[in-house]
């Protein structure tokens, strides 16, 4: 650590910090564009100019390594004049049409201009245009508009240094310099939308979100990506019960600043709801409908009463409960408690899909392999389900026997109708249907819900809170984005209500209460608190381009102190 002074404030920063980071550590906000804590330092934007005692000229603070005793003047007249100058240069060719730019509201150029720029422009020359390079697809997800580019090269460095795919480059030079893909290539890699995240302006935007919602209307909820077992921290960005996008939420120990395109564009899948009320079989309809499977909507009392009745009537060994790697550990734990201990069946199982390999660059993360964290299970909480006492299904397990036809359960209770992609496969569903009574929790309609006897409408990820145990053995909490329509319950509430009928659970328990109970018995959760910072993670940031603003004091000290909680490290 070295001591430096910024505008009269003494701060201690790591030896390898630069003057810009020292300013940030001292709480002095020096605007900047090209600097990003994960990319090489290039000093290109010239926004972060400061004065440093002993140096005759103004300096780009990001390019100056700190020295003990360094005196930085970030707010001197000369420093401010230099930054004003850069801001003026950045704006002379910028379209300045924020009202029709989708980045407005989370644009660093806009923010810095409003905070420190000048109210009028001195240029009267025509503004530069990039015909053919504006509003153009450069990949499956990203649209480029070079009229807005400030040539900070963050996107280029993302592709070179993080993705390692190097699709982007500068083309042309001088005032015509622009970012484009190499001839014959597309911006197409596993994390391509992160290039749009790091873009401080509206030059790179994603097709999926572009012009979908003005960002200031969006509410941000801290959550965890449902795409794979890595469990990238995300912000669910939503308004009026509609999810508009996912953004990565910084977690230095997991996804760092990134998330993959697969996970990111699952956002849309959280929208839509096909069930607003529980569904139960109806004898009259059954008789009158040719396929003999008539059902009607009802209230929770009747639906849960029926399930309770069937469960008590069934032989315990003939009950099969299927948990899910998509459900929180709390929900899986309640399922294991209720069915394993109260109903008394040995058959509490889950099955998760093997997905394609997902990778997130984070060389410093525990468990990183070749610089990447890797996930192969296509669901976020396989480890949590197992830790909670829900066994992984196998050929010989109850689910396996059901599929081979050697077990015909009296009651099959599926706590997540989408526990596997196979639930869309009619042949698979037909095998599950062999059960005499089939109950499912569901948000959306599927081949499985079509044949179930009882459908219990649940909220999905947006409507609930809970925790997942990721591939590293890290417990990560997600929060409620928005409350579902009244009669819909969360999976946790459904299980609590059912458990109450058996006299073992209380409906007033919150997720935090359940977390507390399971933390007392489940080793992977041992010693953790619902509100522990390591479990909660960092808050969703104000803007994706500035998401590293949570990194105060500078990066290295945060990195160094980032350790997995003792208990979680065991996995």
């Amino acid at each position: 650590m070295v001591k430096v002074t910024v505008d009269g404030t003494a701060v201690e920063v790591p030896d390898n910090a630069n003057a810009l980071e020292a300013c940030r550590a001292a709480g002095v906000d020096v605007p900047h564009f090209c600097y990003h804590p994960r990319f090489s330092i290039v000093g290109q934007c010239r926004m972060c100019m400061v004065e440093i005692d002993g140096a005759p000229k103004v300096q780009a603070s990001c390019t100056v390594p700190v020295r003990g005793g360094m005196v930085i003047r970030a707010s001197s007249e000369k420093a401010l004049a230099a930054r004003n100058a850069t801001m003026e240069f950045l704006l002379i060719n910028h379209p300045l049409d924020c009202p029709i730019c989708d980045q407005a509201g989370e644009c660093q150029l806009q923010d810095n201009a409003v905070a420190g720029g000048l109210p009028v422009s001195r240029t009267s020359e025509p503004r530069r245009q990039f015909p053919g390079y504006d509003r153009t697809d450069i990949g499956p997800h990203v649209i480029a508009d070079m009229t807005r580019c400030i040539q900070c090269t963050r996107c280029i460095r993302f592709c070179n240094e993080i993705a390692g795919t190097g699709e982007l480059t500068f083309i042309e030079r001088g005032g015509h310099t622009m970012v484009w893909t190499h001839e014959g290539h597309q911006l197409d890699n596993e994390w391509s939308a992160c290039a749009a995240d790091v873009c401080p302006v509206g030059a790179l935007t994603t097709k999926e979100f572009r012009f979908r919602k003005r960002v200031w209307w969006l509410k941000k909820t801290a959550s965890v990506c449902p795409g794979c077992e890595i469990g990238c921290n995300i912000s669910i960005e939503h308004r009026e019960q509609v999810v508009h996008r996912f953004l990565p939420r910084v977690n230095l120990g997991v996804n760092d600043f990134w998330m993959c395109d697969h996970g990111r564009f699952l956002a849309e899948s959280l929208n839509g709801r096909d069930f607003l009320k529980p569904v139960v079989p109806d004898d009259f309809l059954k008789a009158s409908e040719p396929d003999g499977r008539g059902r009607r909507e009802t209230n929770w009392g009747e639906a849960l009463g029926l399930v309770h009745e069937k469960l008590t009537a069934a032989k315990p060994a003939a009950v099969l409960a299927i948990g899910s790697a998509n459900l929180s550990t709390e929900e899986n734990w309640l399922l294991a408690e209720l069915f394993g201990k109260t109903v008394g069946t040995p058959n509490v199982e889950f099955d998760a899909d093997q997905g394609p390999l997902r990778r997130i660059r984070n060389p410093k993360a525990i468990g990183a392999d070749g610089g990447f964290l890797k996930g192969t299970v296509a669901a976020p909480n396989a480890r949590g389900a197992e830790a909670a006492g829900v066994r992984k299904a196998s050929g010989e397990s109850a689910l396996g026997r059901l599929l081979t036809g050697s077990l015909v359960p009296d009651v099959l209770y599926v706590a997540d109708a989408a526990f596997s992609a196979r639930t869309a496969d009619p042949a698979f569903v037909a095998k599950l249907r062999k059960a005499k009574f089939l109950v499912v929790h569901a948000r959306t309609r599927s081949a499985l819900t079509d044949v179930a006897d009882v459908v219990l409408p649940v909220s999905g990820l947006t409507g609930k809170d809970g925790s997942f145990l990721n591939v590293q053995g890290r417990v990560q909490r997600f929060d409620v984005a928005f409350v579902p329509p009244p009669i819909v319950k969360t999976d946790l509430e459904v299980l609590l209500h059912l458990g109450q009928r058996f006299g073992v659970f209380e409906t007033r328990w919150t997720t935090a209460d359940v977390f507390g109970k399971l933390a007392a018995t489940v080793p992977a959760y041992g010693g953790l608190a619902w509100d522990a910072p390591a479990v909660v993670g960092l808050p969703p940031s104000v803007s994706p381009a500035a998401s590293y603003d949570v990194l105060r004091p500078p990066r290295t000290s945060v990195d160094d102190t980032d350790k997995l909680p003792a208990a979680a490290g065991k996995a």
Partner: protein
Amino acid sequence: MSAMWPAGYEPVLLARVSRPDSRSIDGYLADGGYASWKKVLAGIATGEWTPAKVTEMVKASALRGRGGAGFPCGLKWTFVPPKEKRGNKPVYLLCNADESEPGTFKDRVFIEKDPHQILEGMMLASFALGVKHAYLYIRGEMVHGAEILNAAVDEAYQKGLLGKNVLGSGIDLDITIHRGAGAYIGGEEPALTESLEEKRGHPRVKPPFPAVSGVWAAPTIVNNVETLCCVKHIVDRGADWFKGYGRNEKNTGPKLFCISGHVERPGVYEAPMGIPFMELLALAGGVKGGRKLKAVIPGGSSAPMLTAAEVANMPLDFDGVAAAKSMLGSAAIIVMDETADIPKAVTNISKFYAHESCGQCTPCREGTPWLNKMLKRLVNGQGKRQDIDLLLQISGQMGNGMTICVFADAAIAPVISGITKFRAEFEAYLAKAASPDFALSAPSDVTKKVAERMAEGIHC
């Protein structure tokens, strides 16, 4: 061809260029070429010649880099980290033949007329620096020159002067000619190393300096063509001989000057360092048509222009031109007589910089075209009253540490010097303008405030 050196002066650098067989290795050998290279190689075994000895000679000669900055060459060589520090990393020598500074055409003479002189200089410098592979980076447009150099390198290999165990000395040395892609900025040292690595020729934040981390992150010494030619002559004839040329201890050696513009006989001239400007002008036949001298750009377009009065008693060496608040740079002297239109000249130069900016730093990428657009408008009769001050203010916001490399400082030098020294000519264009006061409504409080804040932005 009239003499390209002062009467009574014995040319050194240009000695061979007008010989009929100046290009071929046979001609070069017949003129005593490669004697120093052979002498040094033969002297290794006896201990007579060591790398340190060559470096010491170059240091003692006070040779300053001929590429533009005039940095002491021997001192630069000592910046290469010693073997203990650099470990297994090789050292590279990079001969800078990117010559693109407007007004400069001296390196081209060596390349096209006397390529072996360059190669011998590179060999001796490589020996001094422990280089096993030296590169010559030639400007992309010089296709012909690259062909000549490649032929010369082939000849040198054939004569056993390059390759493995050269002349049984135990020294291995390869030389590769690398063609740039045609960018002025490629001549800037870090940009040169980037470009040699087949990346875009972008200047990089320093430190690290190339001498510590250059090509492929290995220590790299970049020297101009003429600098390396001087090295050859220093090893030929000794440091004291070299110091015999020049006005003082810090400005030594024979020097090439490129004179262009309004002179009777433009061309490359050789003269001792420190020759007075007026003498050189006389050598070039004086101002064209006997007209009056108006302005001089003494060191390539990046050097601030000087008035006739400022050059009247100016000696042409690094410190002499610096004393006149300009720079010798690449010694490209552009002479402008009384018919020259300074605003148009400045506009023309500004077009070059707008075209050549690499585009990574905001002030340079945005500022160079802005200056050019404004100047173009001005000379096209659409100037506005505030343009002249604005040009100065914008220029003042571009240099002095605002950018990664000094290109931006180079780009503003002609604008600032042109306006401050010949302001009346710029104002004359305003008088011709259709409505110079067009944009001047009564200043509101806001614009006044802005003007005040902007005024603070000037630090030129």
